[in-house]
């Protein structure tokens, strides 16, 4: 399998080249185009994992595209304007913000991280998924805005709205951005993610929630 990212950075599109009998699993609605020889199978992975995914801020269903005894091609896009990146699975795997998931090879297990609920109630609106794979594989992530790879060597503080994915080797915890809760509120940063250890972190240059709030404030109120 080979994935190339086109139309970077503002309107990225992933072109997936599938070898015979290869398949890829994508977020529902991510498919933009495909060669007619691909077979699409929709799955929830059982009701329980489907519901769990809904809680994780993802869609209930995912689609798996499989090539027959010949090569195939699939085009995938993220819902928002922005860049995409192909990550090669590592032994430790990745943690990612739920809406960043676009696609992965079928050997990648993607599950809702238990800490996700904690972050939901903390008001950060951050759902965390864990992606692991027993063998080499690929994970395709999408961002809102530009995607930047940072290397955490010790300590980094990241605004939760700008998180995309990070190496599972890193320890992370949610906390206040300033010395006190009141000051954190005033700073406009609210809740941030504190990272410790060594590993890569991918961030997005815009926060979808903040963007929506700003543009939404200019729109007429919804009538009910």
């Amino acid at each position, binding site marked *: 399998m080979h994935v190339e990212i086109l139309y970077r950075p503002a309107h990225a599109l992933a072109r997936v080249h599938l070898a015979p009998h290869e398949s890829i699993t994508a977020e529902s609605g991510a498919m933009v185009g495909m060669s007619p020889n691909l077979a699409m199978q929709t799955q929830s992975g059982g009701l329980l994992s489907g519901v769990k995914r809904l809680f994780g801020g993802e869609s209930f269903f995912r689609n798996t595209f499989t090539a027959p005894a010949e090569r195939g091609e699939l085009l995938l896009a993220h819902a928002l304007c922005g860049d995409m990146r192909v990550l090669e699975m590592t032994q430790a795997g990745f943690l990612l913000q739920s809406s960043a998931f676009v696609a992965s090879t079928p050997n990648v297990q993607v599950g809702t991280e238990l800490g996700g609920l904690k972050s939901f109630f903390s008001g950060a609106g951050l759902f965390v998924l864990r992606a692991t794979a027993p063998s080499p594989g690929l994970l395709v992530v999408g961002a809102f*805005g530009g995607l930047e790879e940072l290397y955490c060597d010790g*300590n980094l503080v990241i605004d939760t709205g700008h998180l995309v994915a990070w190496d599972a080797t890193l320890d992370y915890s949610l906390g206040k951005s300033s010395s006190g809760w009141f000051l954190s509120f005033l700073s*406009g940063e609210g809740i941030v993610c504190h990272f410790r250890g060594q590993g890569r972190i991918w961030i997005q240059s815009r926060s979808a929630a903040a*963007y929506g709030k700003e*543009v939404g404030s200019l729109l007429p109120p919804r009538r009910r």
Partner: protein
Amino acid sequence: MQHAITHGPSFAMLRVDLSPGETVVGEAGAMVARHQSLAMTVKLNAGKSRGFFATLRALVVALLRRVIGGETFFVNHFTTERGGSVWLAPTLAGQIVHRRLDGELLLLSTGAYLAHAGAVELKLKFGGLRAFLAKEGFFFLGVTGHGDLWFTSYGGVEAIDVNGSYLIDNGHLVGYEGQLALSIKSAGGGLLGLAASGEGLVCQFTGQGRVWIQTRNLETLASWLSPMLPR
């Protein structure tokens, strides 16, 4: 102090690398990431203040900025004893522009401010009816001093070097150098032009200096989007 602007023009992000002892000030809410070695302190958006009355005055100034300037009430000061980086980004899609100030005055559209470093002073300047007709509210943000300034806008930012005179659509103005004179006039075409051309009023700049314009306009986006929303 080193800096880099990446991911422009659509989704620009600013990285500032601080050496020990250096400080950069950013608009509240603009922080994307920072090294833990950088301390973040929230301060009133009102310059330096010492003493009770100065603090009180600062409070009023910050409040004014929030209400009429469309800016944030607070700014964040990033300081470090060991060195490190901070990443900053505006909320909307758009570009970031860096400007090194050496005593000259820059007038910015309120809301264009992102960050500054050094001995830079920010003051609200009453622009009167001209500013209002330029769709900037009644105020501009006057920036002067010696240091670095980063400003931002929705859309791309184009610098226009005016030598003589130049016209700019009101609503697309990001900022201009203080030595330029600003006046408001009709785009032409008489009354029909004023009412029906879709251009209405324009800002005329005369003199010699630089003007920055934004290639997109947020109000236009909002008014295009509004009728499409479900009722």
